[in-house]
């Protein structure tokens, strides 16, 4: 049987390569090697393209946002006059009365530093943040024992003055500006010289709360960071276990039939549902039906959980599929139950893929704004720290991307700077989240 075919295999193609030396590469191999080299370069190119864009984006983010981490403040000494305070507390808009006290103190300070202003106090106050009064009032209410004494305050400068110290605002730019004049800048120059005004690290940007449009210099991302944190807690606690559990069921236990096909298509389809539609669902299901509170991180977390589930399920299923069946047989063969074989062997092996899905899912959830729009987490929300842990889930709060999105829309350019600064913080949070997952992933990674 074999004799008939043997000669042609032995002779024809083999003889062509037979005599050739190993040291000289034939043209076919050279072509293939060139293809190999090209292929490899495509790979390197692809990685470099990705990294190039990453660097470009990070550069844009950093160059726009780093300035948000410094803030200009002015130091004044304020005499807390008991009578003045009491009369201020009686008026409707109490802070405006405090402004008068601050104005006087500022003028005093300038005089002490021998700075000639030639400007009415009301105009002079444009150098200061309009939030100065509330800072002072908050201090006064907290420290009734300080009545009658003189207290040093570091009050924020207004956003234009801050911009001037950051080279964003120039004298020409103020030509049509009704918020500040070039004359103010002369005073500021003198104040810099006198050491009354200085740029310091902006802790209140990192830890503070949102402020209204009239005082960008006071706005911080701290509260909405907490909002994001609470939401991510909900997302992580729900979507990882639920996603993994659903994947395990579908991949390992579910009978392969029409019904599981329906679920499979369904999940893939949910991944394609625009995130805003999840917002519509969240509004209907959690707020209108389940009567959870508006604007609450718990609702945001639930919505984002539903949104990230498909991502986690899809990647987890792919990871589970990739575990060789022989591992399962091995476990079953020594009498492990199916459940045990999955939890003891398959799941640990699939862990890297699961973690990747989780990283991407959480990254997506952490950066998502659209669904939050519908459940009331976008706007002027993050103005107070929640009172406690439970309150953190249920009381109104915003989230980092929503806060960034909101700032990016606001008119004052100082908010724009903060939006980029917020993006930096968002990325830092994201990366620290990733590092944990990456460490875990590295632990589980292995080729068998």
């Amino acid at each position, binding site marked *: 049987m074999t004799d008939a075919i043997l000669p042609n295999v032995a002779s024809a193609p083999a003889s062509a390569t037979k005599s050739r030396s190993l040291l000289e590469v034939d043209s076919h191999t050279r072509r293939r090697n060139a293809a190999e080299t090209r292929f490899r370069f495509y790979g390197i190119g692809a990685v470099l393209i990705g*990294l190039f864009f990453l660097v470009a984006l990070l550069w844009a983010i950093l160059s726009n946002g780093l300035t948000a981490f410094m803030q200009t403040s002015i130091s004044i000494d304020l005499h807390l006059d008991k009578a003045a305070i009491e009369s201020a507390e009686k008026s409707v808009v109490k802070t405006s009365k405090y402004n008068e006290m601050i104005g006087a103190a500022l003028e005093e300070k300038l005089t002490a530093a021998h700075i000639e202003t030639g400007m009415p106090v009301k105009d002079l106050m444009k150098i200061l943040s309009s939030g100065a009064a509330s800072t002072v009032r908050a201090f006064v209410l907290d420290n009734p024992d300080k009545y009658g004494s003189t207290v040093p305050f570091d009050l924020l400068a207004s956003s234009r003055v801050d911009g001037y110290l950051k080279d964003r605002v120039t004298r020409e730019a103020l030509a049509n500006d009704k918020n500040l004049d070039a004359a103010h800048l002369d005073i500021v120059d003198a104040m810099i010289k006198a050491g009354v005004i200085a740029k310091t690290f902006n802790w209140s940007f990192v830890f503070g709360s949102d402020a209204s449009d009239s005082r960008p210099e006071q706005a911080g991302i701290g509260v909405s960071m907490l909002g994001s944190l609470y939401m991510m807690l909900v997302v992580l606690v729900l979507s990882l276990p639920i996603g993994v559990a659903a994947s395990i069921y579908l991949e390992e236990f579910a009978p392969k039939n029409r019904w599981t096909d329906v679920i499979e298509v369904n999940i893939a389809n949910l991944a394609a549902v625009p995130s805003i*539609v999840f917002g519509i669902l969240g509004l209907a299901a959690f707020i209108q039906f389940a009567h959870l509170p508006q604007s609450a991180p718990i609702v945001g977390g639930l919505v984002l959980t539903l949104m990230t589930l498909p991502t986690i399920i899809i990647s987890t299923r792919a990871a589970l599929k990739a575990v060789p069946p022989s591992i399962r047989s091995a476990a079953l063969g020594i009498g492990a139950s199916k459940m045990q074989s999955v939890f003891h062997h398959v799941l640990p092996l699939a862990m890297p893929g699961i973690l990747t899905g989780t990283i991407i899912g959480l990254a997506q959830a952490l950066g998502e704004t659209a669904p939050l729009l519908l459940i009331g987490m976008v706007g002027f929300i993050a103005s107070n720290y929640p009172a406690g842990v439970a309150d953190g889930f249920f009381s109104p709060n915003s989230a980092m991307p929503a806060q960034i999105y909101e700032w990016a829309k606001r008119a004052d350019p100082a908010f724009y700077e903060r939006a980029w600064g917020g993006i930096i913080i968002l990325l830092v949070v994201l990366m620290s989240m990733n590092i944990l997952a990456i460490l875990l992933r590295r632990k589980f990674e292995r080729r068998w």
Partner: protein
Amino acid sequence: MPLSLLFASCLLIAALAFLMGRGKAFKSAGGDIRKLHSLPGYYGWNSALMVLLPSMAALVIWLAVQPLVINSSVSQMISTQSVEASSLDLIMSDVRRVAEGLNKAVEAGAMTEAEVSGATAESMNVRERLGAVGVALGSDVSNETLQAAQSYRDLSATSGLLRTIAVLALALGGLVFGVVRTNKDFRARNTVERVILGLLIAAASIAILTTVGIVFSLIFNTVEFFKLYPAADFFFGLTWSPSFGGGSDLGILPLIWATLYISLIALAVSVPVGLFAAIYLSEYAAPLVRSVAKPLLEVLAGIPTIVYGLFALLTVGPLLVDIFGSNGVLHLGWMQGGTAVMTAGLVMGIMLIPFVSSLSDDIINAVPQAMRDGSLGLGATHSETVKQVILPAALPGIVGAILLAASRAIGETMIVVLGAGAAARLSMNPFDAMTTVTAKIVSQLTGDADFASPEALVAFALGMTLFVMTLGLNVIALYIVRKYREQYE
């Protein structure tokens, strides 16, 4: 007993049940666990589950039903004329507020229990007293409200007591049942695994519930829309131009066209780049390079889309105009402004790179080494091995990753709005500005049109149509993967 304490006691009982169940199993086997059907831990878990399942179910049901029952009984105290003047719902929330305030006052020691139960609106300024403990009320409290609040408090207290008793009884009953049932032949593992399987199934059905939820939250408004606007015009209309005065053209075709066009371009960028990156990282790169580059690429997925949008608007768009515009390097005159399908597609493609690269990398990495050996042993080059053996073996997973990327592309708004524009157009030129279904869902939903008008309701119809459309695409994708899937081992 407060909820948290009740919950904690249930957990405590469950822990006890765990220990007792395990101990009893141990004893019934005479200390030799070899005689047990299952591992001792399973007996423990079995007993613990017997405690937790009924008690937690009861607690959840109770929590859902109690407010309904109390509300309906308290609301009978509210006279019809006050209901007409306001609404029952609001009065009840006032009642709850007062009741909670009273609780708080008692807790803070500002009022005694007797004072609370004896209080009438005439004898006490409730608003002031509660204000003192930090509970703000919207208005003075009427006698009716106060009485309702008092009865609300009483009922809540009674019900709380009953709840505690019921839940604890169930927990203890479960403990007894679970422990009594425990003996060495009892199939504890099977029971526990059945519960776990139940949980797994429940988790899987959440996806179905979500779909049902989405359909429900869209369908009513969609139907409403089609009552106001002819379906044929919506599905087959070639123009999209909503206007406030009515008489809008709301044809979906230009939107669908742009959605597909932009997604296609995005995939044309992200799939090759992502796939090649994945191949390089998993097959060629040194472990160190891989462990650094992979997470770095993943950062691309985490950059907020608004950044990509601005990147498209300020950098990529003008760059493309410089190349393809009428005064561009190539003097082609294809591009009018920086806003174009191409701009959005390119930028979106960058964002999607990690979706393809990271997931594919994991999957390629999981292909057994024997496959590589087999191919290399035949004299294949590494790239031939990858292309002809590894990728086919990893195909289902890779398709999954690509589908995920495509899904993200379809659902993206910010990049579209800033990169491709807001005006719908039906054009073949990828350098024209167009807009997508998702972008329009967002804009119509957050727009200023009368919320009952077709211009606002169309958002729901768009969402529904997109949903059905992607469903169709997914069915096709599933079919294709099934057809070409190759199983190793």
